[in-house]
């Protein structure tokens, strides 16, 4: 990644608070509340791990089961989860990357397997077969609709280094698209491009 393309965004930072008690977890549209750095006068607060209200005060233990606090818990959990919606709305990175859009077949893969898969497509090209690559960088959050559009109607081969085809299962769960053609290696060794080529050539007749 070129260095110039990296931008540091520190997000919302709280300003002075006019003597009011600082609400570290204030409700907000996008689910993100302004934060404060310890050491800043006037913004003292508790960063809590248990479920809490807008101030960071706990709503667990003795307050469990009391209607008012049950509502707080529901609202605070909803607020946190709305960050995922905000991420999907504001960022375009939560979809798989497609390499060689106009190919006849596509390998589906993630992580360190991707390099060998790309190498395999180049070897297949020299044999006259057009293979592209659809590689996943993010699984959660995942833009389900866009991912579905990318995968739909394509001839797919799943390449993974595990027994149960975990990626194919996540894809199935999120998009409803099943990838029955799978190249799986699960002996703990790295999958090689030669192996992928050989297996893929044996599979293309099935489509």
């Amino acid at each position, binding site marked *: 990644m070129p*260095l110039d393309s990296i931008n540091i965004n520190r997000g919302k930072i709280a300003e002075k608070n006019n003597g009011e008690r600082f609400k570290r977890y204030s409700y907000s549209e996008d689910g993100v509340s302004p934060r404060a750095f310890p*050491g800043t*006068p006037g913004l003292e*607060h*508790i*960063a809590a791990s*248990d479920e809490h209200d807008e101030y960071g*005060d*706990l709503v667990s*233990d003795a307050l469990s089961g009391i209607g008012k606090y049950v509502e707080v818990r529901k609202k605070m959990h909803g607020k946190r989860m709305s960050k995922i919606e905000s991420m999907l709305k504001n960022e375009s990175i939560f979809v798989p990357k497609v390499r060689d859009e106009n190919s006849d077949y596509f390998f589906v893969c993630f992580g360190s397997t991707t390099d060998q898969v790309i190498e395999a497509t180049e070897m297949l090209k020299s044999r006259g077969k057009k293979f592209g690559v659809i590689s996943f960088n993010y699984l959660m959050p995942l833009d389900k609709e866009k991912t579905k559009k990318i995968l739909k109607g394509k001839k797919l081969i799943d390449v993974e280094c595990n027994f149960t085809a975990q990626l194919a299962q996540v894809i199935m769960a999120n998009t409803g698209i099943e990838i029955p053609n799978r190249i799986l290696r699960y002996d703990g060794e790295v999958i090689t491009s030669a192996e992928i080529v050989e297996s893929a050539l044996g599979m293309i007749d099935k489509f």
Partner: protein
Amino acid sequence: MSQVVEKTGSEMKVNYGSKTKPIWCPGCGDFGVQASIIKALKDLQIEKSNVVLVSGIGCSSAMPHTFSTYGLHSLHGRILPVATGIKLANNSLTVIGTGGDGDGYGIGSGHFVHACRRNVDITYIVMTNETYGLTTGQAAPTALVGTKTKSTPFGVIEQPINPIALAISAGATYVARGFSGDPVHLSELIKNGIKHKGFALIDTFSPCVTFNHTNTFDWFRRRVYKLEEEGHDSSDISRAFDKSMEDFKSNYEKMPIGLFYKTERPTYEDLDISLKDGPLLNQPLPGKEEIKKAIEENI
């Protein structure tokens, strides 16, 4: 501890306490510890906004909620990695860990040993009650052999942890033990722990009045005595080890409190070159050209 000015008398107007009601049972040892921390902060006149209390999970880990300073209520057993991170991000802060013996010596025991070695300038107050009170009374790693609890109906069959000996051997530079039943003495230990430059452990007997009917306030009162009244030399590591074994050797009949061991050596912050220009928080990020240069030079 950096940048503290000790003042005498009650010049301090700051109220370190918060309006949040503690979750503790009436009579809990943790009230005495809370009062001792507040007294230590008042005596040292530390700015409220420069104090960060870090806790784990448990009754005693509710401590930061009863303060109006900065606080971080973290995960079970993770006080020390979180506190270390805060201190390294901004070493001008006064970072105090507050948690229980189950949290610190059980779940967090790996972190505990390495925090001692690292000698980061934080103060760690462990409220020892030999039980997991929040989950209604299972044996903690400090429970004595034979103690019957919900999780040990036939009595504990494992040896208890000796946090004092463990801390000294792992390299902690300030190792003390207090008693919630003597908050004046305890607050002095905490105060000196905060002032000490390096990792300070203050193990504190803080009885659980609800789930531990063995190690009660009275039980401790009959057993504790003060090291300073006996003229203990806290700079002598061999004497410190000897004293740390007294609980065991006396079959838990004589249990010393006070300062076991204190020594001076450079803190982690002193030795980490990335902090040589001051707290990380105040250091500007390098520009893209500087990053490029660093990558080219080093990779």
